[in-house]
């Protein structure tokens, strides 16, 4: 596992944090991340950038539109024998891309236990154990967490449903005002998975390793999902003839009143959109009565990063209480903290308590009132994506 990383002659596992700090001084960390959101960009440059400035580390954002760009970059560099002097120091990553890089042994690690700010985390938090059901093993560190929430335009939706079944009924009673992004987009798949859990009779059966039995189960039960989706298809926006290519175009439709609903894998995003003037101020965010998915997003360090010390300092800063608080503000990115707030100093705790989640926002209390549904593994995700194309899209 560690073979690739050992090409670097530094003895990382045994390096004390002080030495990491010393080495990091003066390093510029090339942080490849999604650049589609101004708030996130500002967060990386200002909040996070300020947080590592004292350590003499500079963050240089590389704005990309798809994590695959970073993955391909690392891949190409390694392929060309660029094993120590790569151009990616840190990637915003999660799920399948993480699995891909990790399986190709292109990630540096395990490193998470080195980070002092991990003291802020509950060691048993699933955020540290599994990403998409895949064991993390210390190769990526959390940035924050997000929970799937629905948002509707209260000017268009008088009586919002509070369950998935209710939503499905509402869709066909109000044709043309709902849609979801085409798969394999992340958001689209999240939505389909929410439905899947309901129509196939619960999420529990999908947990765990993707065994042959699971596969058989999938073959048996997936038609229920396709039926449900095909049933709402004629009631969707454009009668299901086409789907938004991603979440952003769907949000656009929502912003313009073409859609009555949108949804997000991150609970704070709608509030931020209202604040930035994109969404109407009649936007309301809600969560299903029986809970929704939650997931975490991470950063990882490629094995050929020349600034691993600096990257470690950044990863550490991300998990600091102050940064997590600042990031949670709706005026920033409204991203949920991955840390255990109780482990933070009092003023941070007070800060969290004082956050006003604003118009279109949803408070941690509301979220906490419903259960968190675990994510399925990558194989399940892939099965949903492939099946959706054949059984829904191309039908």
């Amino acid at each position, binding site marked *: 596992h560690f073979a690739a990383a050992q090409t670097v002659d530094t003895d990382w596992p045994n390096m004390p944090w002080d030495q990491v700090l010393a080495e990091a001084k003066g390093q510029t960390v090339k942080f490849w991340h999604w*650049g589609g959101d101004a708030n996130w960009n*500002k967060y990386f*440059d200002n909040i996070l950038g300020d947080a590592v400035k004292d350590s003499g580390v500079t963050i240089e954002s590389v704005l990309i*539109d798809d994590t695959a760009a970073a993955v391909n*970059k690392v891949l*190409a560099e390694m392929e060309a024998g660029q094993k120590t002097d790569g151009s990616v120091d840190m990637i915003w990553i999660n799920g399948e891309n993480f699995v891909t890089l990790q399986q190709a042994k292109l990630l540096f690690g395990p490193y998470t236990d080195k980070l002092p700010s991990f003291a802020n985390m509950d060691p048993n938090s699933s955020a540290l154990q599994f990403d998409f059901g895949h064991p993390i093993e210390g190769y990526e560190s959390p940035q924050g967490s997000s929970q799937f929430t629905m948002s509707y335009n209260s000017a268009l939706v008088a009586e919002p449903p509070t369950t998935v079944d209710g939503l499905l009924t509402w869709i066909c009673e109000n044709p043309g005002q709902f849609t979801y992004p085409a798969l394999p987009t992340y958001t689209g798949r999240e939505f389909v998975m929410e439905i899947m859990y309901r129509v196939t009779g619960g999420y529990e059966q999908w947990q765990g390793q993707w065994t042959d039995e699971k596969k058989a189960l999938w073959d048996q039960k997936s038609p229920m999902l396709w039926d449900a989706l095909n049933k709402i298809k004629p009631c969707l926006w454009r009668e299901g003839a086409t789907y938004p290519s991603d*979440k952003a175009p769907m949000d656009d439709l929502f912003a313009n*009143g073409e859609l009555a609903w949108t949804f997000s894998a991150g609970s704070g995003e709608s509030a931020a959109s209202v604040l930035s*003037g994109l*969404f109407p101020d009649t936007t309301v965010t809600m969560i299903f009565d029986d809970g929704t998915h939650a997931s975490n997003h991470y950063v990882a360090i490629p094995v050929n990063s020349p600034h691993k010390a600096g990257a470690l300092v950044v990863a550490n800063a991300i998990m600091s209480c102050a940064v997590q608080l600042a990031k949670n503000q709706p005026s920033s990115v409204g991203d949920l903290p991955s840390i255990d707030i109780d482990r933070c100093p009092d003023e941070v705790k007070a800060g969290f308590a004082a956050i006003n989640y604003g118009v279109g926002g949803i408070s941690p209390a509301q979220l906490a009132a419903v259960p968190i549904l675990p994510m399925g593994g990558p194989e399940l995700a892939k099965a949903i994506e492939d099946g959706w194309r054949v059984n829904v899209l191309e039908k």
Partner: protein
Amino acid sequence: MTTAQFLTKPIASSRSGLTLMGLLRGAALVLLALWLVGPFIPMLVWSFAHRWTFPDLLPKQWSLEAWTYVADPAAQVLPAILDSLLIAVPVTLLSAAIAIPAGRALGLHRFRGKRIVEFLILAPNIIPGLTVALGIQIVFINYGLDNTIVGVILVHLVASMSYAVLVMAGVFSNYDPEAEEVARTLGANRFQTFLHVTFPAILPGLVVASLFAFLISWDQYVTTIIIAGGFVKTLSILVVAAAGGGERAITAALSIVFVGPAILFLIIASKYLTGENSSAGGLGRR
């Protein structure tokens, strides 16, 4: 009156100003103008809009948020402008320098293998950037050209040059080299002949070719990010990233910034596009 009459040269049209044809022409021109700037109008409005939802014709609330963001160092706009220029300008100059002789060879001469050369030069425009960029990246890593401006310039050059060569080939196919012969007998050496005879004759075409070369480099996204993502950041990387995020106001503002320098180039070039020196070029020969 046929449409063609309306479009071709009204050589002996009437002297009075207002005619049916004049009106039709006028109407067509106005339509054309509207169609051309149409998509840009909502963009301009969006960059100053704070919430602009259906069915409002204009936003209810105006704001400078987007522009504030663009001015924020976090948006990386200034370094991106610099990098974009640092790449696009050399690419343009090199493309022009390559395209003049190559366009001449293709436009004026017949030779064995011409079709193949034409096709090879067309190839970078046929083959998707992604297909080659990854391979090029590996080649460049071996030469230490990855993550450098020079590397990006070289990659952009392939596409830009190929456009420029093809445009110049078209220009030269209408060029009469006999004027050069005259100049030579009048004692102009090759360089002087080029400078005083060839250059002014092909100038309008060359400006168009350079403009395209510039714009292609200016617009490149995939190849830039693959060859030097993280080291070289251009405006187009910013715009594509923003467009993916769906924040209309910021996308609109960034787009406007993005378009600015290119429009500047256009203004400089427009003297040649409007055909003020329309006598340039030989009489349409082939």
